């Protein structure tokens, strides 16, 4: 069991986490955050394996991973 949390106020919608996730857990969301970026959201949370690759590549430290 693993869980990914996106701190959406940090997210800038760069898409690097979306690209790297081996399970396609993440996707660009459709709600702008206060800065106007469409923050990433986990679209298929249950598939997350907690590999933390998304966190590793996130340039804005917007991701937390739990396991």
């Amino acid at each position, binding site marked *: *069991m*693993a*869980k990914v949390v996106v701190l959406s*106020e*940090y997210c*800038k*919608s*760069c*898409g*690097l986490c979306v*690209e*790297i996730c081996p399970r396609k857990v993440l996707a660009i969301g459709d709600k702008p955050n206060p800065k106007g*970026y469409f923050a990433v959201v986990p679209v298929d949370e249950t598939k997350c394996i*907690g590999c*933390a*690759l998304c*966190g*590793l*590549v*996130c*340039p*804005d*430290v917007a*991701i*937390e*991973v*739990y*396991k």
Partner: protein
Amino acid sequence: MEKVFGRTKGLTDVPFHYCPGCTHGIIHRLIGEVLEELDIIEDTIGVAPVGCTGFSLDFFSCDFVGAAHGRGQAVATGIKRALPDKIVFTIQGDGDIAAIGTAHAIHVAARGEKITSIMVNNALFGMTGGQMAPTTLAGQVTTTSPYGRDCAVVGTPIDLPKTIATLNGAVYVAAVSVDTPKNIMQAKKAIKKAFQVQQKGLGYALVSVLSTCPTNWGLSPVDSLKWLRENMMPVYQMGELKVAKEVEAL
């Protein structure tokens, strides 16, 4: 459930000012993690000259001093000489360290200043809108090389770590990249070693990190990583360029 990945204590909770997808942020995080892991947050003074990293004073949890463009290493020298027991590091752009800061880059290495420098190499002046830097690649289009860098006129890109490695006081010199998870892990290792070198008082340590500038490269964040991989990594000598004997033991 346990947190297996999250924000390091080495960083404050201020969101980065960087453009979306800019890997400056990854490098910041790695440094923050190293500060935390070595437990030196409270003993460290960081120095950031102007450039995109110039606004990073808010981002790290340690004390920080802002320097003029190019002067980070001279300022760091002053701090370290005043407080030899503290950890002092600089985070600076390629333009900063390899253009206007050249003399200081050479001489902190020559003197063996016991400081750590992290050079963020994005092959241009990011902060000012993407002009050619000494590190700009052959043929690369920037706002001041609109027809592509012409090496016959302005020379080939400078590989600063290679030059620094010739100086005796530089005991650890590495060039790393943050384009893939694996390289990110390796980058962190190099950065950590560069701080450990200082903890042990062995001499000067430089880590050059290849980094993207999606904004000024005019590429998406994902494409930027690819561009970095395909264009920058073959040009710059990667890996540990110099590991002095006393550093090998680390």
